[in-house]
Structures are given as C-alpha cells and as structure tokens.
C-alpha cells in the first residue's frame, strides 16, 4: 500500500482528505438544519424531540454519525496540521503584506475561523449532545387525541413531583382515543439554554464564523478535488456565497434568537 | 580576391541541394561507448545552447551547461516575439526550401554563405516538427492544424508563432528537453556562472574558466569540445533590445585566444521599437515585426502637421487619410510594410531626419492598426452573421481579433508608454536588435580554434548583412538540434583517445591566474565613476557613428573616442564590494571592458567595408534613391579579424554564389 501512503502524504492527497471531509460536513449541515427546523413547529417540541430520537437510534444514522465525528476531528486536526506546515514554508515573514489586494480575507483565515468553529462544536455538543446522552434531561409526555388532533403535553413527573425517567429514549402507546408519547425533552433544554445571552452571542459569532469559513471552503473543496469548469464553477461559487455563506448560517442563527426573544 | 588559407570553410563538394544530406551521411561517427567518455561544455542556454546540450546529452555525450542567469530558462531567446520561419508550405502559397534559401540570401544582401543557408532552409521543417512534439503550443487554426503569418522580406506565409511569445515557447521547449537531461544526470547545469576564458592546450580548446557569480570563486572545467552559444553583442550600443546581461564576453575571450571575429559591423537595427523616452532609459523594447502584418507605418505628409502632432496640438487620429504618407507603401509597393528590417529602419530614419518625426524628440513614426482593426471587425461580423453592424461593433470585434494576435505586445506598449495603442496609433523608432556578425565558423560550426564551436547568434554564418525576421529562432534551433549533433562528430571522432585532462594542468592554472589578475585589476582601479557611465558613453559613440548610417570620417573619430574612453575606463572606473561575493557591478565591468574593445573593432570593420549592404549603411555608398549600394566586385567577402594583441589582422573568405544570381536587392 505504498501508493496509498504516498498519496496521503503528498500535499494534494492531504488536501483531498480535508476537502472531502469538509464537503461531507457541508452536507451534514443541510441535514442538521432541516431537522432543526422542527424547533419552529408549534407543538411544544414534539416533532423536534421525536426527530432527536430518530437521529440517535436509527442504525444507519448512527453509523453515519460516527463517520461524522471522525470527519470533524480529522478535518480540524488535519487542517491545523497543514496550516502549521504551510506556515513553516515561509520561515521569514514579510515586513509588509497587502493580502487584501489579491485574496479574500476569509480564504486567508480558514485556520482561525475553523478553530472558532471547533470550539463552538465542543460547546454545542457539550450543551446538547452530551446532555442528551449522559446528562439528566427530563422526560415529557405528549398526549394527542387521534380524533380531534388536539395535542397536550405535561412534564413526566412522579407522585412526589420529581422528574421521572424511563430506561429508554422514548415510549409510545395508545390509550383510547389518545396517542401517548413519552420522550426526552431536549426541546425544553434548547429553550432554556437560549435564555442565556452570553450563549446566544457565542452562537451568533460561531454562525458568522461558519458562514465565512464555508464561503471560501465549499467552493474551495471542489477546486481541490479537481472540479473547475467555466460553466459550473460560477454556480458553485454562488452556492458558496448564498447558501453556505449566508442562508445556512442565518437560518441556524435564527434559532437561538427565536428562543431568546420568545 | 582569394580566401585566406586560415579560413577553410570545409563546405562539402557537390550540388547545393545534396551537400548537407550527403555530408550528414558521411561525417564520421562516435560509437555510443565512446560518447560516454567524451565531455562537451556548452556556454549559454538560449535556443542554440539548450537545444545543443539536450540533443548531445540524448546522444550519450557528457555535457556541462553554463549560464549567467539564475536558470537556463532566462536566456534572452525568451524575448523573441514574432515567430520562426520554416519552409513547410502548409499555406500552399508556393513556399519551398529553395525559396526560403533564396529569400534569406537576398534578405542578407548577398553576404551570407550559400551552403550554410541552404542547410538552414533544409532543416527548418524538422524544427517545427521537433517543437510540436515537445509540446510547444504554436497557434492553430480551427481545424486543429498549425497557423502561419507573414514576416518581412518574404511574400509567403511561412512564419509559425505562439501569439507574441514565440521565442518564449520555443525556449521553454528546449529548456524542458534540457531539464529532462539534467534530471537524468546526463547534463550538469551551472547556473549563475559566467565563462571568463577558454583554455587551449596544444592548439585545441580544452575547457573554460568560469566564475561562480554567487561566491565569486573561479572554477576550471575541462571539455573535449566547447560550444559557445552566447548570443549577440548588441549591448555594445548600451541601448538595445537585448537583455541587460547580454554580452560579448565569452565570444570576445575566445577571440583573444585565437577565434576570428567576422563581420562585426553588421548590426541589425530593428524598425519597430518603442522610442527612447529619456536619459534614464536602460534598455529598448521591441514591438514585434509581426505587427507590420497588420499595422501600417506612416508620418504626416506635411511638416506643419508633424510639428502640430509633436506639440500635442493635433491628434493623429484626426489627420485625414490623404494627408498621411505611408512611406513604405509608397516607396516599396511590392513589399509595402513588409520590407526587410534594414530597409524599413533606414526609411524611418530618413523621414525623421527630414523633419516628419511625430514624438517630442522627433524620432518616431506611427504604426497604425486602425484600418486593419476595422477590416478584421467586418470579417468577424460576417462570420457571426451580424449584418450592417455599427462602427462601434466592428471596432470591438476587430479589437478582439487584435487582442488574440498581439494582445501581450499591446499591453506591453501601454505599460511602457502609458498610451493605449488600441485607441491611438503606436509610435515606433528603430533600435539595435541583432548582430549578424560573430565568431567565424566553418560548415561544422567550428571556429578557427579547433574544438571551439559557435552556435546561434554568436556565430556569423547565416544571415549575411541583414537577418530576416523570424530567422534567428530558426538558426539557433537549427544549429542546436540538427547541425551540431552531426558535425561535432567530425572533430570528436578523432578525440576518442583523448582522456579527460585534469584541471590542474598548467594551461588551466595559467588561464585561471590571468582571469584572477584581470578581476583584481578591475577591482583595483578604484576610480570615481560607475560602470554604466562608461557603457552609456560607449553606446552613444557607437549609435552616432556606427549605427544606422556610417561614414569614414565619423568612424575614424569613433575609433579614437573609443580608445580614449577605454583608457579612461581603466583609470577611473569604480567597482564597489568584493570579488569573492556576488557582485553585479564587477560582472558588468568585465563585460563593458570587452565591449570597449569590440566597439573599436566594429568601427574598424565598418571603415574597411567601403560599400553599403544590409545593416551596414555607409553614407558615401548609396544610390540616387538612397538605397544601399553594394560593391560586389571588391567586398563580396566575409571580413574575419584575427586578434593580434593591440591590433587586428584582416582575413577574407570569398563568398561564391553558384546557385543564386547576385543582383541589386529590390523590394519595389
């Protein structure tokens, strides 16, 4: 497998891996965003909480999520490694550099932007993923009348008023006309977290960082894997700007803002 | 007149058309095993040098290449713009080897050697094949086949080109072939090295002394043969289209060690260069001859219009057609704007001297693309099916065609002058460009020193008194790819028993010592004036007295002036820094010291040649219409000068025309 190690030790091979993981993370963002839109549903979080269960139990999604974690780690650390290596290619710095004359600042700041994003991911996963998996998220009980469609929800508490837990993520059964769903209430957690203005600020800054990172990163990934065509590259570049640079980060940013001002 | 016994050109017997084929098949060979132990030194990495080095290394010789630049790719062949001639007849316009041969001899004003020129025409086609195979991206037509354009002095389209960067593309082709051999270890490359002397042992050239320009150290290198591919000496004029570093030093050192120097006065003044703008100017920039395909040269018919233009009171675009003097079309209707360079340059000088010059200094004429831009625009409009296009549309479409053909040249013009040539006619004036003279070589390209060869512009052989456009690239590559690989066998086949001579041989030691002394002498002048001061002064003398027009009186004065300047140089030049470090001033000083000697010889040669021919125009010898007047009875010879220390001895090689009827050159 000499050829493999040669490939992945070459500058282009290493960049290929960064590009592929990066583009994979871009597709994840779209999935993540479309899932998160459940937050805006006026059902006290039922759809969102069910989505969360699906995402954490479906075997296919679970497998993909491990790939995702690995990609994040690889993308981040390979990126940092390459940035350090690239820096060493110019041991004596210029006294004056007019970078803005020839390139966009985002393209020159991928390391910094990426580091902000990495820190954000740690915070974000600590807040929600870790809490969901290992923390003490209370359960909620949704009752939906199957005839009228009317939906009510109550926190799942014991006789003593203390939160009750069940030993699985979700339970679903039918009681007469009613469908009962008991599920971990991550929605409430989200709602509560985003009352903290500092956290909201961190999220907003991080979304900006993601926007700037992807404004360069998305189209750059295609360039690295060799996709450059006079007809299609302009499309990729406008996707980079509008979809990944503006729409997706704005959409994500709208969530903390929504709950903060709710 | 008879040829000097010291100048045996070794031209093969037989009919002209068969000389080369037959010679090539009978020239002695060196077997592959012996090639491996034969070492060849190539000095210079331009078209001739790179092509020769790569080809010889491919054949199995051990090759060392030297260049003073930081990379072999920088050699000044890279700046050649317009194209390269080849008798391919791809345009079906009646071209042939004979026609290329004939045009070249005629273009050279009947002062070139028939056999050499015919060989050049014969191999011209192979060059194009070779370059295309190397990946040189010549311009192509939509059908995928190669495109051609016209150049001066011909009535066929035989010039292959790559936009205005043909020299660059050809050199990069040769350079890549050279780098391939370097990568394989067959060539050892010495960049940032300048050859400062040749080393002769028992009457044969056996190596060189070179200075490492980074450390200043002198080095000795042995070779069974040494090839000088070091280009021309136009920089003797200070202002020329040559690169700043182009110099005569290698050829001159060889000359001082026994190589005869031929026809030094044949200088090509290129008609289309950007005019001088001020005294700060360090070099002149060529606007390719290919521009004369589509540009029309003119000055105003009336002096008062010329004056108004000079003073900025009249926009040349506003001058009516009937008030313009397209003087080349007027004087030379058959060739029009495509007359050879010497003719076009003299005509421009004549108009400017008569008071019709169009820039502030009065030394410029117009090169106007407006008419052809519109013509192209209309053709494009037709192609695109635009009927009754507006003038603006036609102009835009025409501009696009011009951008594709000459874009880089127009950009360069704008950059240097600050004027947009798409909107205003270019201003041009003649400038020193190429030197037809050089080291004397025989048919094998060997100089009068056995084992020492000269290729490309460094030799004198193929262009007579005037070189046609797009022929320099052809000659450089012909010599390097297709001549020297064969002809060097004639010498090296007798050297297979010669073991590599150790460089502690006495001759090497002496040569190095002499070189070191020369450097010390320069460093120790410790005068007051920088090298450029002397170089500028020399250039002015040369341009005024030995430039586009010469006369006996001026030349005699120039000889004295140069001698005086040379004395002053050796008393008053100041070279800062140290000899054992990178020292560009020291490099320049060495080169100017040689120019100061060469300049004198050029004037002596010009004074000796009592006729006008090609690039050599003696005012005393002209027709009533102001055309060059040759004297074939007395001057149909190559003037070869042998260095005798403080003087020169003239040797003549008679030029015999057996296949061409020698005639008054006419482009009317």
């Amino acid at each position, binding site marked *: 497998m000499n050829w493999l190690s040669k*490939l992945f030790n*070459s500058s282009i091979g290493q960049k290929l891996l960064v590009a592929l993981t990066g583009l994979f993370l871009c597709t994840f963002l779209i999935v993540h965003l479309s899932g998160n839109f459940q937050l805006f549903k006026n059902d006290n979080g039922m759809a969102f909480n069910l989505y969360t269960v699906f995402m954490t139990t479906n075997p296919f999604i679970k497998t993909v999520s491990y790939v995702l974690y690995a990609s994040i780690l690889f993308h981040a650390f390979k990126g940092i490694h390459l940035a350090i290596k*690239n820096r060493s*290619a110019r041991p004596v710095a210029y006294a004056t550099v007019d*970078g803005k004359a020839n390139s966009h600042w985002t393209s020159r700041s991928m390391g910094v932007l990426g580091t902000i994003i990495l820190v954000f991911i740690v915070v974000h996963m600590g807040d929600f993923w870790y809490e969901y998996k290992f923390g003490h998220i209370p359960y909620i009980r949704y009752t939906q009348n199957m005839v009228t469609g009317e939906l009510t929800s109550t926190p799942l508490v014991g006789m003593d008023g203390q939160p009750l837990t069940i030993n699985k993520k979700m339970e679903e059964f039918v009681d007469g006309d009613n469908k009962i769903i008991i599920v971990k209430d991550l929605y409430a957690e989200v709602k509560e977290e985003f009352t903290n203005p500092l956290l909201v600020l961190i999220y907003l800054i991080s979304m900006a960082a993601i926007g700037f990172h992807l404004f360069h990163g998305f189209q750059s990934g295609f360039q690295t894997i060799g996709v450059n065509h006079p007809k299609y590259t302009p499309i990729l570049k406008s996707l980079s700007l509008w979809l990944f640079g503006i729409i997706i980060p704005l959409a994500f940013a709208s969530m903390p803002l929504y709950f903060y001002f709710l | 007149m008879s040829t000097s016994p010291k100048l045996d050109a070794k031209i093969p017997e037989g009919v002209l058309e068969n000389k080369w084929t037959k010679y090539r098949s009978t020239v002695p060979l060196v077997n592959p095993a012996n090639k491996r132990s034969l070492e060849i030194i190539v000095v210079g990495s331009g078209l001739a040098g790179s092509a020769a080095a790569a080809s010889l290394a491919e054949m199995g010789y051990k090759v060392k290449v030297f260049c003073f630049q930081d990379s072999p790719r920088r050699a000044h062949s890279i700046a050649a713009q317009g194209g390269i001639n080849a008798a391919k007849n791809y345009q079906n316009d009646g071209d042939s080897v004979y026609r290329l041969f004939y045009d070249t001899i005629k273009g050279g004003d009947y002062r070139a050697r028939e056999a050499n020129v015919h060989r050049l025409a014969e191999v011209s086609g192979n060059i194009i094949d070779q370059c295309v195979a*190397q990946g040189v991206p010549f311009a192509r037509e939509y059908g*995928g086949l190669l495109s051609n354009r016209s150049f001066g002095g011909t009535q066929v389209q035989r010039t292959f080109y790559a936009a205005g960067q043909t020299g660059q593309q050809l050199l990069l082709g040769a350079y890549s072939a050279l*780098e391939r051999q370097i990568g394989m270890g067959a060539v050892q490359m010495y960049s940032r090295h300048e050859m400062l002397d040749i080393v002769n042992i028992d009457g044969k050239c056996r190596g060189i002394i070179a200075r490492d320009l980074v450390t200043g150290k002198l080095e000795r290198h042995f070779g069974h043969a040494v090839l000088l591919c070091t280009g021309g000496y136009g920089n003797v004029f200070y202002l020329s289209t040559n690169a700043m570093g182009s110099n005569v030093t290698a050829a001159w050192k060889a000359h001082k060690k026994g190589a005869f120097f031929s026809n030094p006065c044949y200088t090509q003044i290129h008609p289309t260069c950007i005019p001088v703008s001020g005294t700060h100017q360090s070099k002149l920039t060529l606007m390719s001859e290919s521009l004369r395909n589509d540009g029309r040269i003119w000055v105003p018919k009336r002096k008062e219009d010329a004056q108004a233009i000079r003073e900025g009171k009249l926009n040349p675009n506003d001058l009516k057609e009937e008030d313009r003097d397209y003087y080349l079309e007027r004087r030379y209707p058959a060739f029009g704007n495509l007359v050879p360079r010497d003719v076009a340059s003299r005509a421009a000088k004549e108009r400017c001297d008569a008071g019709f010059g169009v820039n502030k200094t009065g030394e410029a004429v117009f090169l106007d693309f407006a008419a052809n831009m519109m013509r192209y625009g209309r053709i494009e409009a037709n192609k695109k099916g635009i009927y009754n296009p507006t003038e603006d549309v036609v102009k835009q479409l025409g501009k696009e065609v011009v951008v594709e053909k000459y874009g880089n040249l127009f950009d360069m013009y704008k950059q240097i002058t600050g004027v947009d040539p798409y909107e205003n006619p270019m201003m041009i004036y003649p400038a020193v460009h190429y030197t037809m003279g050089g080291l004397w070589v025989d048919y094998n390209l060997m100089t009068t020193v056995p084992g020492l060869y000269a290729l490309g512009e460094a030799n004198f052989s193929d262009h007579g008194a005037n070189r046609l456009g797009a022929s320099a690239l052809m000659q450089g590559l012909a010599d390097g790819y297709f001549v020297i690989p064969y002809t060097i066998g004639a010498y090296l086949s007798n050297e297979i028993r010669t073991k590599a001579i150790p460089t502690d041989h006495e001759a090497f030691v002496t040569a190095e010592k002499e070189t070191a002394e020369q450097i010390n002498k320069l460093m120790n002048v410790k005068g007051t004036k*920088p090298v450029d001061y002397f170089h500028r002064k020399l250039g002015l003398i040369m341009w005024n007295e030995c430039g586009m027009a010469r006369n006996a009186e001026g030349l005699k004065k120039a000889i004295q002036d140069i001698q005086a300047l040379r004395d002053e140089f050796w008393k008053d030049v100041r070279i800062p820094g140290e000899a054992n470090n*990178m020292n560009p001033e020291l490099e320049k000083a060495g080169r100017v010291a040689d120019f100061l000697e060469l300049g004198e010889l050029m004037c002596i040669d010009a004074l000796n040649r009592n006729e006008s021919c090609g690039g050599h125009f003696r005012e005393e010898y002209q027709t009533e219409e102001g055309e060059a007047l040759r004297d074939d009875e007395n001057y149909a010879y190559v003037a070869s000068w042998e260095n005798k220390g403080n003087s020169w001895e003239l040797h003549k090689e008679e030029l015999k025309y057996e296949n061409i009827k020698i005639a008054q050159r006419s482009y009317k």
Partner: protein
Amino acid sequence: MSGNMNITLKVWRQNKASDKGRFETYAIPNVSEDMSFLEMFDILNEQLIIEGKDPVAFDHDCREGICGMCSMFINGRPHGPLKGVTTCQLHMRSFKNGDTIVVEPWRAKAFPVIKDLVVDRSAFDRIIAAGGYISVNTGNAQDANSLPVAKENADHAFFAAACIGCGACVAACKNASAMLFTSAKISQLALLPQGAPERNTRALNMVAQHDAEGFGSCTNTGACEAECPKGISLSNIARMNREYLGAALMS
C-alpha cells in the same frame, strides 16, 4: 533624469545567505514618472556607488517582462501594485510624489535569499526536471501537422505555457506554495495529445518534487492568480489536482 518625484525606498539589505539582514532607507530625488521601477534602482545604485557604498543586488535581465528574472516584493505585493505586470514593466507613474516604498525579496523556505533582493529559485528548475517535459529525443518527431490539436486546447495549453517562472505565485501565497507554477506546466502538457503518454508519471513526480522542495500546499486563496504577471489561471491547479489524483488512484 529630470523627474519631479521624490521617493523614499525602504529596501531589504542582506550581504549573504547567512546574514541576518535589515531594512535600509534611501531617498531618491528627481524620479521621472516615465522611469521603470528598476531604472529607479539603477539610479539608486549609481548614487550608492558614487557614495562608496555597496549597491543593492537585484535580479533582472530582459526588462521587457518575459524572462521572469526580476522579483521584488513591493509594498506587500509581488511585482508591485499593478495587475499583469512584472517589476521591470512597472513604471513610476504608478506611484505618487512623496511615496515611501517597501521592497523585500521573495520570502519562502524554498527560495533562500542569496544577497539583498536576490533569491535562489532553482527549485523551479528541479520541478521541471522531475517531469515538466515530453520525452522526445531530437529527430524523433513526425510531421507537425500529422497531429491536429483542437484550437481551444492549443489555446489553453498556450495560456498555461505563458508562465515565466518568476515565482510571484510563491511570493504572494500565504503558504508559499508553488502549485500555480507546477500546475501550469502539468496543464500545458495534459491539454496536448503529445503529453498524454507521460501524464501519470509527470503529475506524480512533479508534485512530489514540489513537496520535497519545501513549498506549502494550496489553500485556494487565489492570491497567485491575482498576482501572476502572466494571468495563469487557478483552473490549472484544479486540472493538476485531477491529473494527480487520477494518476495516484487509477494508474
């Protein structure tokens, strides 16, 4: 020399490779706007020589923008403020009276400084020697028109081949990457049918040599393309990536 601009130059001076180096400031009076940037340096050097000081060493040769030898980093940009122009073609009309201009050598691990503004760019030659050629010995060629090449491909090959090897791409790149240079040659030969037989080994070997010389990797900032005096396109780097990955994975 009758100009009316007064220019202050802050120039990097370094006597030899092992020296630490420093900036020195020089005042140049009476600069004409028709002067080229290098002609201004000629004047500075003459001034220094007359003062008995060591002139500034800088690389230059053709002074018409094609040899690729000149190489100054001017006010934070390779070849100065203009687009599509080498230092030798830069004229003083691009500056204003009273300007202070900072001039540095190219900075890259693979381009060590030799003296003052002169750097060693032989790494480029070694990249070409690793595969930037078509292996055709002299005399092996068939007739030039026996192999038609689509005009579009020939044109693009030419645009890539227009590279002058000056190193501005490396100088401009924040990673000191030579990918634009390397890709220009790989592209030129990949676009032509003549280059096809060696395309795989060429891409592999040239990229390997690029890496071995200590150039950084490409992060697609586009600075190289923007600063390239010959307008070599970034699409060449994408093509090189394709060529390389294709060669590494499929050959």
